[in-house]
């Protein structure tokens, strides 16, 4: 029972972090139709920048906030590079792959190759059903739930959110209606950067990250986003949770080395299931 609760809670919090990454994918795809493969890079920037700020004596809370803001700015810059010009969608997609590789190089140059971590917000761990739970898990759960509610509401219920969705749904008609499609795309990239950054800020205290952690984070986030066909924020959260929990149970009851393999197998199953339901990104 104790182990079960521990795996479950760890799985839920890691799953929510994946869901944050997934939301970044969904947000950017819904507005620009670009699958932003640099989504994982925002997370490593978020983690590493927090790490440096904390080391420089900036207090907890402020460090995390600044790191998320910096990631948002990086998101904006990536957006300008990827969709700023009049270039085909496929070119934008390839650019985001390039940006992800570039990010790894930059992080490696600045911070080196050693994995980093930092402690989460100070405070006592607590005990549920005899399991020791780090306080950080609670923080992850609360922070991501707040973000999810804000996003689902913002996208689905507000006029501005609908205008953003309209951009990917029919960019030409959006322009005819007076929506600045390019500006909306850049806003999406900025928000995507913030989401990715927040994911990195939250996950680094749970498990150390390296300069190259962006790939596995991006893949898991992408997989979770696929569950919602890249357009549904709600299903992306479900996807993230499935991956997070499955990963922990596999690692805990079976073997940690099977963790990635199981995640990928799960991804393939989901892709097949998704393909039968609705075509991925069925925005036509």
């Amino acid at each position: 029972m104790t182990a079960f609760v521990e795996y479950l809670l760890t799985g839920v919090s890691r799953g929510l972090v994946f869901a944050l990454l997934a939301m970044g994918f969904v947000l950017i795809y819904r507005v620009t139709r670009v699958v932003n493969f640099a989504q994982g890079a925002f997370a490593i920037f978020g983690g590493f920048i927090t790490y440096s700020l904390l080391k420089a004596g900036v207090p907890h809370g402020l460090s995390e906030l600044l790191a998320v803001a910096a990631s948002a700015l990086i998101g904006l810059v990536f957006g300008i590079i990827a969709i700023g010009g009049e270039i085909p969608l496929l070119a934008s997609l390839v650019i985001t792959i390039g940006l992800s590789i570039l990010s790894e190089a930059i992080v490696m140059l600045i911070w080196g190759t050693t994995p980093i971590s930092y402690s989460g917000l100070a405070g006592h761990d607590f005990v549920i059903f005899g399991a020791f739970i780090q306080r950080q898990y609670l923080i992850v759960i609360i922070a991501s739930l707040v973000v999810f509610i804000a996003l689902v509401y913002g996208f689905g219920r507000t006029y501005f959110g609908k205008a953003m969705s309209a951009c990917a749904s029919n960019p030409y008609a959006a322009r005819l209606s007076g929506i600045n499609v390019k500006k909306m795309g850049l806003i999406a990239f900025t928000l995507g950067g913030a989401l990715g950054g927040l994911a990195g800020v939250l996950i680094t205290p749970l498990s150390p990250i390296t300069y190259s952690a962006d790939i596995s984070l991006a893949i898991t986030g992408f997989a979770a986003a696929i569950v919602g066909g890249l357009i549904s924020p709600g299903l992306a959260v479900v996807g993230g949770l499935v991956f997070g929990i499955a990963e922990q149970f596999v690692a805990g009851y079976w073997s940690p080395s099977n963790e990635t393999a199981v995640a990928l197998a799960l991804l393939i199953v989901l892709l097949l299931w998704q393909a039968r339901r609705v075509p991925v990104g069925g925005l036509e």
Partner: protein
Amino acid sequence: MKSVESVQPSQGRSVDSDTVLATFDLVVRYGAVVALDGVSIHVRKGEMVALIGPNGAGKSTLLNTLSGINRPASGRIVRKGKLAHVPEGRQVFPDLTVEDNLCLGAYRGGSRNPAPMYELFPQLEKLRYRRAGGLSGGEQQMVAICRALMANPDVIAVDELSQGLAPLVVSDIARHLVELNKQHGTAVLLVEQNAQLALNITSRAYVIENGHIGLEGRSSDLLRNPAVRAAYLGGVR
């Protein structure tokens, strides 16, 4: 870009005070293809104007240039008041509901209340929470027209009203356009393959061929014009 949307009368050629939309010697190119080669048209306040011509003549290009989607290589556009554009192929937002489609029409300003549209097309009210992508062609055309009307335009440009629609649906929607024109004084620029319909409901018309305005005049005159009859009205009688 700015000069293209200028609202001041041009140097040289004057614009009538009751003109809402006009172009002067408009030239638009797609790479090496010259789609519009010196097109001058105008639409007056509350006027219904038809633009007819064969496939590839440049009709949609003209509307897209008026809407700022295409940039002219040369020439000038004068726009006084708000233009709304119902594009060829309707171009609804397929993933959004009918109501959201309508509300987004008011993005540039105007009331976001869709109720007047449901009065105009009562069928739409029952469909308000349906995905626009799942509607029939005729329903989508109503959505597209209402979305444009939500901007409260002074002139509405409709590209291929009748495309792919049953004759009854077309005449129903056309009747609504005429009503709207009469009641609100909204000017209409109607691009149509169905020349008979277009010339019947408008007062003036342009015939565009190969990027040139080949003919212009009163719609009733063009209806009797032998060349127009031969090319666009089946040439019978």
